[in-house]
Structures are given as C-alpha cells and as structure tokens.
C-alpha cells in the first residue's frame, strides 16, 4: 500500500505530559481519513508533528515516503489548516493567499488563477479585496480552508475544518472535500462525527496519544454486515427474533433502544432480514422508528472510548 503519511510509535511530550504516547497511524495515498478522539487525545498534536511544527521526541513520522517534514523536500507538497491560528488582520484576503502561495514556491502566474478559483470555491470571491479583520468567523474559516488547498498539495491536514461554518457552508465544504478524494490525501480531525462519516473513507480513533482503532469506515460501521432497528418503548422480543433468524447465521443484540443484527462472516440480505425481523417487532408492539444499514460511527466511537477510559468515564 502506498502511504502518504505514516506515524510509527511517535512520542511527543509537553513537559511531563505525553501528548502522543506511541502513536502509530498509516494514511494511504488518496484517502480521506478522519481522526476522531476526545479533547486532548492528541489529534492536533499529531497534525502539527506531521507538519513539522512540533518536534517528535521519539518514533518516526514519514511524509510521502521521504522522511519527516523538511521544508526543502515537502514545502508545497503538504499543507495544514491549524485549529485556532489567526491570520494577520490587516492583510487583504487575496494578498494573503498570494503571499502564502509565493512562500511555498508557486509562480505568480499560476497562483493568480489558483487564488481566484479557490476564493470562488469557498464563496469569498466578492470579499477578495477585504481586510481579514473585516471578515466574520465563518468567512475566516473558509479562507483558512482555501489556503490549505493552494497549489494542490499532495497531503492536506485539516484540524476541525467545519467549526464555525453555517449549515449551507458545511454541506458545500463537505462536497469540496469529497471532490478532492483520490486527487489528494486529506486528513481531517473533527468532533463532528456525522460529517466524518459523510466525507471519510477511513477513520482512526485516537485516545490518550495512541491509535485505538484504524480501519475503513465501512468496516467500522459494518455497513454491509449489520442492520440496526431503532425502537420505541418496550422490551424487544430478542428470543423471537433469534428464532426467526435461526438459519441465517446472524447474531442478535439489544442495546438501549436498538436491536442490532450482525453477521461478521458474510454480507447480509437486508430485505430478507427485514422480512423476518419486522413482524416480530410489530407483533410485540414495539414501535420501529428507524432502520439503519450499519452502525453509527458515533456509537462505535463511544464504545471504543468506553473500552479505553472505562465504561463510566
């Protein structure tokens, strides 16, 4: 597998605190990967370490197969959208993008076109001459997103890119990221799990500076291997459902307000399972609110987190 970014047992310390405590992560080229984890889990530290902003105490970060970040090797091939960094307020929108582009070695001619295209894409073309301090928080965020795609770098690291965007811009930006799939490798750190689910094709759970799980999103949510019935009040007829599905080789679990049908070994025929399960639920008088193919990323993340932190934490 061709890797765009690889962390091997990386340790980063802030004083006595180990922000990354042996982080191992493999990001395939052309993938869109989501980093998911608690506050302080080490996601931002990981992105900053990849971009050469933080020094790694031990372990190895490999970028594009050419070792850790070196400006001479990686400038213009990697970009970062920092979480809470401010741009110079007195600069104008177009000028700052031109400055960043020139800094990473782009030619003026190529940049002019690139800047206009990106401003148009993030809906800031009409504010190109405005000073950054005159922009709203959401507009500044969109400008930050635009700078991350200047010069089409091979790998783009985005730290909470959708924070502060309105719902329309969230949807537009999500489409923008999806369009970049296969062209560029995108690493997204986010707490908005439904957005991660909508955009990413791979996901890594990070807790206490380590990767607790990394897999294809399809595998994490078991989209083709599970059906989830969200039900109303009343206890689900688990035994009756197990009887109805006896020869299908599936497993049945009840979890809070859900009945989860899984088959780890082969893909399920959702129509067949529905035909057998729904009558049992309706007969038991349990309202069926929703049928979802696959588990929610949020549920899987919370289960994974509970295993790391303890159930009650």
């Amino acid at each position: 597998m061709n890797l765009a970014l690889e962390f091997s047992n990386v340790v980063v310390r802030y004083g006595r605190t180990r922000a990354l405590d042996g982080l191992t992560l493999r990001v395939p080229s052309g993938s869109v990967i989501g980093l998911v984890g608690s506050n302080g889990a080490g996601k931002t530290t990981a992105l900053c370490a990849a971009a050469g902003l933080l020094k790694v105490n031990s372990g190895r970060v490999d970028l594009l197969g050419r070792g850790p970040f070196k400006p001479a090797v990686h400038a213009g091939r990697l970009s970062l959208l920092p979480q809470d960094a401010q741009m110079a307020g007195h600069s104008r929108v177009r000028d700052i993008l031109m400055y960043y582009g020139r800094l990473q070695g782009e030619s003026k001619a190529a940049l002019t076109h690139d800047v206009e295209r990106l401003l148009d894409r993030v809906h800031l073309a009409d504010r190109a001459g405005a000073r950054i301090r005159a922009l709203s928080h959401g507009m500044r965020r969109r400008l930050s997103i635009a700078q991350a795609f200047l010069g089409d770098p091979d790998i783009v690291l985005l730290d909470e890119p959708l924070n502060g965007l309105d719902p329309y811009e969230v949807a537009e930006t999500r489409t923008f990221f999806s369009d970049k799939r296969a062209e560029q490798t995108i690493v997204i750190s986010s707490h908005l799990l439904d957005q991660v689910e909508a955009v990413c094709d791979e996901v890594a759970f990070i807790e206490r500076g380590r990767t607790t799980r990394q897999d294809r999103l399809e595998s994490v949510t078991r989209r083709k291997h599970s059906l989830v019935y969200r039900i109303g009040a009343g206890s689900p007829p688990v035994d009756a459902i197990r009887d109805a599905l006896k020869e299908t080789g599936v497993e049945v679990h009840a979890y809070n307000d859900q009945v989860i049908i899984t088959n780890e070994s082969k893909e399920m025929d959702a129509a067949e399972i529905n035909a057998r399960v729904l009558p049992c639920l309706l007969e038991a008088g349990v309202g069926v609110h929703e049928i979802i193919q696959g588990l929610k990323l949020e549920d899987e993340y919370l289960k994974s987190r509970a295993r790391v932190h303890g159930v009650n934490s």
Partner: protein
Amino acid sequence: MVGGMVGDEELAAELLSHPPFAIFYGALAFMLCPWLVILMSSPRIAEEVSSKSVRYVLFRTGRGTWCMGKLAGQAVMLAVALAAGAGAAWCIGHFRMAYFEGFATAQSMLVFACRVWVFSFAYLGIALGVSQVTRVPVLAITFGLITMLALTFVAAVSEHYAAEGWRHVLDVVHALTPQANRTALWRSSPAHTIPAAVTLIAVGFTFFLAGHARFARANQ
C-alpha cells in the same frame, strides 16, 4: 556644543565641515533609533507565534528563511523610516530656517542616515533575536530593553576599567558593544567607518542567530 554631542573634541572639529542642521539630525537619529528599533521590532516574531499565525507559514518554507525575511523586512522598514525622517527634517529646515544650505544639508543627512541605519542594525539583530526566544510580545520588548541597557552598562564599565595586562580584554569587550562603534560612524575616514560597520552588522547577526538557535528547535 558639537563636542558635547559626540563626546570627542577632535571629532567635533572634523564634523564642523557638515552643516549644523545635519549634525543635529544625525545626533538625534543616533540617540533615538535604537530605542525605536527595540520598541517596534522586538514583538514582530513573538506576536506571530503568540497568535499562531506562524502555523500558516512554517510548513511552506524553512524557519531560517522566514526569520531572515523578517530581518530583511524590518531592515528595509528602518531604512524607509530614516529616509522619511530625514526628508521631513530637511523640509522643516528648508521652510523654517533663514540660512539653510539645502543641497549640502541633504547630502550630509543622507550620509548620517546610512550610518544610523548601520548602527541601528545591531539593535535590529537584538530585537529580532529576543523576539525568537519568547512567544509573549510584551516580554520580547522587555528582553530587548534589558539587553540594550545591559550593553550600555557593559560598554561603560569595560571602557572605564580597561587597562594593561589581563584587563586589556575589557578593551575587546568594549569594542564589541554597539555604543563603542558609534563615534567611529561620525568620522568620514573609511578606516574608522568600515571596521565599525562590520562590527555592528556582526553584532546584529550574532544576536539574531543566537535567538534563532532557540526558535529553530522550539515547538510552534
């Protein structure tokens, strides 16, 4: 009066070849520029680290290149400020003074402005050096002022206590302080001005690079 301003009677005689207005401009610029440089340039890098805007640039270019760019930018700003100050002073003299040698004064002011730039470069190096060791802009200014005052103190003490024998080392210490080279910049002979200019630029780069040694390794 000129002797009092430059602290050297022989030099004072040499300076009398310049128009008095230019000497007054030079004396003021030599006195005020280091303070202005420390106050204006010390926070330049620290404030970008503090606001984290540095995170938008350090993956695009090397830390050394970026800091050198800051030094070059500040040096150009200093030159522009000196030129603007000289221009404004010349205009005031031209319109307000009864006897004003316009061309000769402009020529002398230009020469003094260049020399003040060289003198202030040492302080620019100090300012951007301290700016690289802290992420708090106010602290950077404080460190800059402390360093400037400490150098003034070292210059005075080393000049006062320099003598034969081992205390000759104090002469060397004195020669390496910016203040010790200011007098030489008033003189017209290259034999005085060139060594002083080289020393001042070297002092500036030494402080800048000492700060950069920390910045290059620090987490941003």
